[in-house]
């Protein structure tokens, strides 16, 4: 494969009140940004379970963006502070698993910050493109030659191990 052909696939979780509206605004303002992000709407960034991020990566996404209201501006008063904590905890774990910093990003974008969101998406796509594919399932897809080795066993049993009566 040629590296230039790689287009990252990024899953975005955007809160309904700020970031999703920022995406609406980016659209209304016709701000062009990279098509690599695919957005899931959640009511609050506080809904984003670390499982969602892990799931996206395990499915083969190359990056995940979480976006929500700025701290102190949450429509649910203070839930995005929980997002900060979970995000930091998750990153702590992802770091241990060898996943690069740039692949999972927390971005604040208020409803008025379409441009900010668009540029954050562009920046992230650039960074992940630079890193190359993650393709997490490839980490275990093969287990190098396991099929051959398994098939060798019954053959061996049949041949070598059978003691003539």
């Amino acid at each position, binding site marked *: 494969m040629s590296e230039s052909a790689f287009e990252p*696939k990024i*899953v975005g979780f955007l809160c309904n*009140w700020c970031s*999703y*509206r920022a*995406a*609406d605004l*980016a*659209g*209304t303002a*016709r*701000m*062009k*940004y990279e*098509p690599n992000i*695919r*957005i*899931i*709407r*959640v*009511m*609050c960034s*506080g*809904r*984003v*379970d*670390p*499982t*969602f991020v892990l*799931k*996206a990566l395990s*499915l*083969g*996404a190359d990056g995940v963006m979480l976006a929500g209201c*700025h701290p*102190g*501006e*949450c*429509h*649910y*008063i*203070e*839930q995005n502070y*929980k997002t900060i904590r*979970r995000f930091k905890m998750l990153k702590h774990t992802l770091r241990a698993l060898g996943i690069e910093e740039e692949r999972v990003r927390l971005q604040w974008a208020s*409803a008025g910050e379409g441009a900010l969101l*668009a540029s954050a998406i562009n920046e992230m796509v650039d960074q992940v493109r630079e890193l190359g594919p993650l393709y997490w*399932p490839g980490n275990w*897809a093969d287990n190098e030659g396991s099929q051959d080795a398994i098939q060798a066993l019954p053959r061996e049993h049949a041949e070598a191990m059978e003691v003539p009566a």
Partner: protein
Amino acid sequence: MTEKVGVYICHCGTNIAGPVDVEEVARWAKENLDGVVLARDYRFMCSSLGQELIQEDIKNEGLTRVVVAACSPHLHEKTFRTACSKIGLNPYLTQMASIREQVSWVTEDRAAATHKAKMMVAGAVRRVQLQEELQPTEVPVNPNTLVVGGGIAGIQAALELADAGHKVFMVEREPSIGGHMAQFDKTFPTLDCAACILTPKMSDVGLHENIELLSYAEVDSLSGFVGNFDVRVRKKARYIDEDACTGCGICIEKCPKKVVDEVFEAGLGYRKAVYRPFPQAIPKFPVIDRDTCIYFERGTCKACEKFCPTEAIDFEQTDTYLDLNVGNVIMATGYDLFDCGKIPQYGYGRLANVFTSLEFERLCNAAGPTEGHILLRDGVTEPQSVGIIHCVGSRDKQHHAYCSAVCCMSALKFGHLVMEKTGAEVYSFYIDMRPLHKNYEEFYDRLLQEGMHFIRGRVAEVTDAARLPGEDGKLIIQAEDTLIGKQRRIPVDMVILLGALQPRFDAKETGLKFGVSAGLDGWFTERHPKLDPVATMTDGVFIAGTCQGPKDIPDSVAQGAAAAARVQGMISKGTVLIEPIVATIEEARCSGCRICNTLCPFNAIEYLEDKAVSYINPALCKGCGTCVAACPAQAISGAHFTNDQIFAEMEGLLYDVIGSNGATVKSPQPALEPA
């Protein structure tokens, strides 16, 4: 999966159909996505014909799920939900894909746009099949309303409701209602006397049979939900028996202790330790200020008690608590004035004759400390020249980035009053003049004609360090006159600082108490900046006046009335539907670990000691899903945003990575692109 999904791709004229090959998206969805029984593209899905198209298909083809790929759900989700429910399909069985805002308007390459649209449709199709029927719950609305704050916005709201025949509880922190407006002398641009137009409304509130006025009181706690709030109000001890007091004022007269009045007189005048902020105060009962009263300080005095003709003084009084039940809450908690001392170069607090706008209002007010004479801090000398500085703390990233909206007009009003009362020269230093409303520009024109000087330039500093002839003994205002491009020094006798309007010092705490969020600048956040300006994210809690942002009296009154109208609507309807997008705890799975207990800012989660499990009150839950994401036992599920629904959407969005069967495939997307 046995669901029958109908997919509709909207052209939105050429908005979508231009950058996205909509026919191709529809064809692809029909051919590739499990569960899709039909996929159509149509010019305008939101038109009545478009909606009928869906309804026909539900009827004729037996669709059980509907996906509309069009604009943002914020625009038309409601439209399509309603269309489906009209024909008998539960509205929560629809899903939108925002292929206009997120695809056609933001993507340059047509192939990439078409591909992204397909993936988004795949996500919606996967998700919609797992969506469940939901029913909003209906609860009755208590017709009583709590109004917090007795400034002009709160007064307006209370009177509107009371006049319509509904019971209102008004809670006011200070001993009297009236708010900032009661401190003002005149109002712009009409120059009406503020008291003349405000006090009749205040006494209406005081006398209204439907209004129960709780002054010198604060809301202690609020719980419950729209239609049914429980409020606990703390009535601070007045040390005056309200039933016995006639409001004659002898206690005030006899009180030997005089202190600076930091609130009503803005620190510019004095009051007694037992006081009524101003003669027309509503209610009429005075308050004994425990912190300054000689009796409370030293244990002797009681002059007020000796002279009170009705034995209304009660030094033994304590704070009392009142429990109320209301259906709705209107918050009109107002603003604080910016602390002008935070900009030391303007000399406030150091240079005697630098005043704040609120101090100046009191100076001008016939009922104020100088009986309406505009005098310097010595209390004797009339100024011969006055400088007015705009934007003190406003439009300044170091303090408040926003414009305080009222200062330009205040400056004009002050200029007029100074010239009228003293004949002094008036200089106004502004960045931009913003006389924005009806008859405001005309007022500006009038002041120009009256001879007020306007210098376009933000003041650099105010100093008493004279260095040029004519500066000795004056305050010198130094600024660049930006229209000339030269630095100027204007010596004046008095400087008025138009301090910014800023959120109440305790706004954050108040917001938490009422479940109302605030923006970075600290003002309470409305539900929608344009289309829902007085509602908040908490159903049944409305905001009016300056607690939502800087505004002048007409706008505050309009918001007070608007909030009242919203409440009346709720009362008239009698019941409210509560959004079914809430979280629930499956009791059998809950181990009562109590992780979730502190997570809900709306106090929807309670711990049931007897069952040792946690419980979510659906009426209080706002559906944010934070607890759902937190539950370590995964005992909490969030309706309409379940894990499975979100996983399904994710799998659809990554269709090009994982293929149709959900298992990750190694060859990402070759078959997907049109050749």
